[in-house]
């Protein structure tokens, strides 16, 4: 628990005004970071001697559709030296103007940000290799968004077997 407070204390003295809010849930600490400060915060957390968050385990994004700001990007950090997890969270209003890329801090962030863009459409500024990672290259849209249509095809039962069968695009040899 004291390491939770050490992070906040160090971050406040090094980068005042970077932390917007602190949120604790079941022993996990989440720091809400200002969007334009995220890269400086990540750089500091990695390089500080006492903290050493040298492993970026994941970046993921949430869609909080009725609310504003609509998107939130979470950074899950781990300090291998201190065995401590920390979550940073950035609120994003415009998905095309997302947080700055942290690829210069942890190179793996290139791929994690690619995933965030692929599935949620939040574009991390400065990452020049945002392309389709999980989805086919010609895919339209970002399926993890809450307003993405789920898609549905009419199910074939015995009462409408022939109707569906006539329309179904069967493959040929």
């Amino acid at each position, binding site marked *: 628990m004291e390491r939770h407070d050490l992070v906040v204390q160090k971050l406040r003295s090094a980068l005042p005004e970077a932390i917007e809010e602190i949120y604790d849930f079941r022993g996990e600490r989440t720091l809400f970071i200002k969007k334009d400060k995220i890269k400086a915060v990540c750089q500091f957390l990695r390089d500080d001697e006492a903290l050493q968050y040298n492993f970026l385990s994941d970046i993921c994004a949430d869609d909080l559709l009725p609310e504003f700001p609509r998107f939130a990007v979470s950074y899950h950090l781990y300090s291998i030296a201190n065995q401590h997890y920390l979550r940073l969270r950035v609120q994003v209003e415009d998905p095309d103007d997302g947080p700055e890329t942290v690829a210069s801090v942890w190179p793996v962030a290139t791929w994690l940000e690619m995933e965030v863009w692929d599935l949620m459409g939040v574009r991390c500024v400065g990452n020049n290799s945002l392309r389709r990672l*999980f*989805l*086919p290259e010609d895919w339209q849209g970002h*399926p993890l968004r809450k307003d*993405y*249509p*789920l*898609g*549905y*095809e009419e*199910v*074939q039962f015995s009462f409408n077997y022939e109707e569906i069968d006539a329309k*179904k*695009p*069967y*493959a*040929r*040899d």
Partner: protein
Amino acid sequence: MGIEQKLGDLGVVTYRLEDLVNWGRTYAMWPILFGLACCAIEMMSTQASHYDASRFGMELNRPSPRQSDLMIVAGRVSRKMGPVIRRLYDQMPAPKWAIAMGDCASCGGVFNNYAIVQGVDEIIPVDVYVAGCPPRPEALIDGIMTLHERVRGERLKDWA
């Protein structure tokens, strides 16, 4: 020095060539390794010692489409996987057959959404559909035997 000396004169057996060829095709059907989801677990257990698919001459799952003549599509087919399946199927030499194993491969199953192809028969022609989620090994064996019945009724000209 062979079996003919021990057994003496065996005589001549006559048979229809078509039946002989189909007999050979039936009992040496090598499936391509194609497990996509949980159905693959049942497919593996079909091939393992308890259910023993080698009784049908198909204990070998070939990792190369060029060495196989049966595709058991075991699991749901995502839109991204679709072109891969078609490509592998096209590389298999004829004669070739396909079994859609399980509900997902047959009709999309519970995944009626944008990500899953609603039945692999939209991508490759399917000979036998096996129902179940996932089907038990007995059901897959029944599907294989249904396919055998079908192959025995085929004409050589169908594949020529």
